[in-house]
């Protein structure tokens, strides 16, 4: 899952990026409204965390412009402006959630999780697809009734992205785009390696290969146990 963080504060921005990355997200930071709007237009982000008081272009304008152009990227507004009028304006402009500063990281992560679930029309918690149950706190997966398997950061990100898009064919490029931020060398061969490792942990047939197209998480997996 790749998140666009539009936040101008030179301390809070990088710090939030680190914390979100610890939560298993690829994060790009834009520190002004104009860059933020341009980045948000690319269809590579699963969601946006948007500050409202931005240099260059106010956050509200950025959001309004996206929605006007038919860009429905899930957006969480993160702002110091806590008046109800501003919250209403935010939701009316097309925001999906609104969090006021100061906030706790857990609160932000919980909101992000909930928002991503909702955006992919998945039931609330825990994330459970095709007999796989993902524990987002400990970054582990439970296959059927078997024991929990601890995943590495990369594997966790990969599996979570698959589980958010069950039954959908995901190309290597798509996976790279959604799992890495722009600062990382995104070699698509790395994806193959991670898929191989993931298959080893959760079962080879759970991720099917579509030649020339990509990979797909098998939605209705026959009960092997």
């Amino acid at each position, binding site marked *: 899952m790749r998140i666009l963080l539009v936040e101008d504060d030179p301390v*809070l921005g990088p710090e939030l990026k680190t914390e979100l990355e610890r939560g298993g997200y690829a994060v790009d930071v834009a520190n002004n409204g104009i860059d933020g709007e341009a980045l948000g237009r690319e269809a590579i982000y699963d969601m946006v965390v948007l500050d409202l008081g931005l240099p260059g272009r106010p956050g509200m304008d950025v959001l309004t412009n996206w929605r006007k152009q038919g860009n429905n990227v899930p957006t969480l507004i993160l702002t*110091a402006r806590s*008046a*109800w*009028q501003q*919250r*209403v304006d935010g939701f*009316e402009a097309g925001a999906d959630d609104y969090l006021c*500063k100061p906030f706790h990281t857990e609160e932000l992560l919980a909101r992000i999780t909930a928002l991503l679930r909702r955006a992919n029309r998945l039931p609330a918690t825990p994330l459970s697809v095709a007999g796989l149950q993902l524990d987002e706190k400990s970054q582990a997966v439970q296959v059927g009734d078997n024991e929990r398997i601890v995943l590495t950061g990369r594997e966790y990100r990969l599996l979570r992205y698959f589980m958010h898009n069950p039954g959908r064919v995901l190309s290597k490029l798509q996976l790279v785009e959604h799992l890495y931020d722009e600062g990382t060398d995104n070699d698509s061969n790395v994806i193959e390696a991670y898929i191989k490792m993931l298959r080893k942990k959760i079962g080879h047939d759970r991720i099917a290969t579509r030649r020339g197209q990509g990979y797909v998480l098998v939605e209705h997996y026959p009960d092997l146990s």
Partner: protein
Amino acid sequence: MKSIRARLSFPFVALTLSVFVLLWLLQGWFLRQVAYDFVAARLSHESFLLLKAVGPGQEDAWTLDGRYISPTYMRPMSGYYFQYRIDSGPWVYSRSLWDGQIPSGSTLPAGKNRITAVMQNGEPWLVREEAYVKQGRYLHIVVAEDIAGIRHDLARLSGMTIALGVLFLVLMLLAQVMIIRGGLASLRRVALDIVQLKRGEIRQLPESSVSEIEPLVNEINYLVQSMELRLQRSRNAVGNLAHAAKTPLTVIDRQIEKLADRCPADAEALRQQSLRLRALMERELTRARICGTALPGQRIFIQEELEKLQRTMLAIHRDRNLTIRTDVNSQTFFPGERDDLVELLGNLMDNACKWAVSQVRIVGAMDDRCLELCIEDDGPGIDPVKREHLLDRGERLDESKDGHGLGLSIVSEIVRQYEGRFDLYSSELGGLKAHIFLPRKREGLV
């Protein structure tokens, strides 16, 4: 209190009245003068006739030749009289004098005359005395005419003049009142516009085409505008301060979390202070945002705002599957700032949504004098004793569910600004019922 109309009317009436009285006096004097001159001229003529008529008769005695004089002198009390004497002989009287005589002054040098007005037997007479010398003898002729008739005519004329004058004055006054009223109409229209402005039906006074009124209207509009601007500016300043202060506070909080691993006691102390700072800032900033009806000309239709809030609430609490029912007439409006209404409803609705099991109900009603809002939920409700505490101190009952504390104190603050009432009851739905009562018009505002 001074009235422009009275100030315009009074000098006008006084001036008109004095001019009229002066004219009336002048006219009376002039007419009387003309009439008396006319009578005096005729008396002079009569006196000449008498001079002609009196002369030496057959027996060398001087007699009056009756052919020369008018018969009216023969009729007693006819109103025309004469008397004469020759040298210092006895007075010879006309028959019309009967037993009386014309009061006559001292002797008059020959060739002179004297005109006097006297009262005789209760009648005003004009008397003309002439002294002649005829054939070497001194002749003193006195002719008089009763001028009661002329006097009477003059009095009638004067009365008529007064009557006409009064009529004219009344008409003038009426016309003047109407003219002044017409002139002041634009002022009255501005007063009505200001009432509308106060009620919130308009946001600016319409421009006036009257040059005397225009500066007034412009100044009021300027004042309203500058108030609006000042309000906006102070709100922006508050918003900027909030933004500027909260981001560093967020960073501080994160540093505290990091510190917690190494030094839990220090981190806890810092966390307490940070929490206090947060609460203080939040409360003061929100209070600063509340402005009451500082600005005239506001009319916020509640239904529109409620629809937006409803969407927002459903978005915030979308996992809860809540039903929000509203019952507000489309014409019901809030007599103040939009931000205040939204803050008020936002806090109450958010509380209701947080505690509700499945439904929230909002009812709004307005009559000529007040606006009434009820927000209810079907949640667990609050014990009556604790409700009092909540309203008194904005105390937070449940720390885990953020709200119900600060939120309600902000609501209380807004309601206080609008001089309304805020009560908490038990709802028929089972939960809490927040009841807001706001007066629609506040006196002393514009």
